């Protein structure tokens, strides 16, 4: 084995070098993901394969907090508006289609870093639903429940009445599919994705704010993109 004892310990240097590179990459993470996001944003319009969505930090990622992706057929779907309202509502997808419609195009930003540019949403303003149900005066907050049975979210009444908070049923011109939280989900455009409750089943007007699912794990209640959760993303 004498010849093997000779030579330079390159293996150790390669390992240590890669550890250094890994450490630098962790430290430069926010910068790298912003750069990759720009690259993917430039590539994706010219990419019929959709492979650019696999670039780290870009493209939709589907998260669920339960074991599967819940599904409710659009024909059987009902959305309830309850709590401190004058008249409780139970709405079908057709009821939502018949209400005044709003379109909104915004980037969608996840708190874990990925961002999807220029997503086209269409639906009904949450404020319109609150008005139709007759949300009572002096109520502080709105709680959202997902029909996955676990997920909840909430907004203050002032946030809920913003123009860019919608109950949406259309994504990029198509009915919202199962993975994206269809047939109907919430869209809180100026906040991180976890506020936009998927598989929306009920909207409840409450006299005080009840923190949602991820807020219980330390995420910010007021999840403004770029001004919360210690992140510095461009606002959406």
């Amino acid at each position: 084995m004498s010849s093997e004892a000779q030579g330079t310990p390159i293996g150790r240097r390669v390992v240590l070098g890669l550890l250094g590179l890994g450490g630098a990459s962790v430290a430069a993470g926010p910068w790298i993901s912003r750069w990759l996001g720009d690259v993917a944003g430039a590539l994706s319009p010219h990419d019929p394969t959709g492979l650019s969505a696999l670039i780290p930090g870009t493209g939709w990622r589907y998260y669920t907090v339960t074991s599967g992706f819940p599904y409710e057929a659009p024909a059987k779907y009902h959305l309830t508006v309850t709590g401190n309202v004058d008249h409780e509502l139970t709405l079908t997808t057709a009821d939502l289609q018949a209400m005044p419609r709003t379109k909104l195009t915004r980037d969608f930003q996840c708190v874990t870093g990925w961002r999807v540019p220029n997503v086209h949403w269409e639906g009904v303003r949450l404020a319109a639903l609150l008005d139709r149900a007759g949300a009572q005066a002096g109520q502080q907050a709105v709680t959202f429940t997902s029909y996955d049975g676990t997920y909840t979210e909430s907004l203050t009444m002032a946030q809920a009445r913003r123009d860019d908070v919608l109950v949406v049923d259309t994504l990029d011109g198509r009915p919202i599919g199962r993975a994206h939280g269809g047939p109907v989900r919430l869209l809180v455009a100026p906040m991180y994705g976890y506020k936009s409750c998927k598989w929306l089943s009920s909207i409840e007007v409450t006299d005080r704010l009840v923190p949602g699912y991820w807020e219980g794990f330390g995420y910010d209640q007021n999840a403004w993109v770029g001004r919360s959760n210690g992140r510095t993303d461009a606002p959406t």
Partner: protein
Amino acid sequence: MRRPEPLPRFSRGERLVHRSTSVLVGVLAFTGAALYIPSLALLVGRRPAVEATHIVAGLLLPVPTLLGLVFSASLRADLQALNRMTGTDWRWLRRRDRRTARLPVGKFNGGQKLATATVAGAGLVLFGTGILLLAPARVALPVSVRQGATITHDLFTFGLLVLLAGHIWLAYRHPEARAALRTGLVDRAYAEREHPAWARQNR
């Protein structure tokens, strides 16, 4: 004419380390893909179970190697050989006719040595960033660190997958090497062609 006796190349312990690590890497690659690729995530579903499997396999990943380092003298000796690049190894890497030039290559060639070190380094980075990502949200880990760990874990995975593809491709091209990791023995003529210095020492 009698077929020459095969040469002992890998001990039982080394083969066990290789087999168990490859199973763990397979589980990690599949569960990782099911967490990362949207269409596959939809197909597989059960995200919490997939996530838990990925975490357990990741935590177990270094165990076979660590046990091998403690209990297998042959693994320790091979790692020492893999660590050191000789002049022959660099020549082997540089020359286009490396497979026919009859360079006095030892138990491992230069490509095997550099690949081992790269996989080990990248594996440690994946393990470390994986541990950072394991810390639940309630632990006060700065979001920038979580983001850095995420992107680093993703990027190093892509790099390691390229190496893994090359590893499998070369194993496919070298059935004698596959047999050595299955039986511990390598065909003598193959060893004399690919690793002549090592074969000479074991004559």
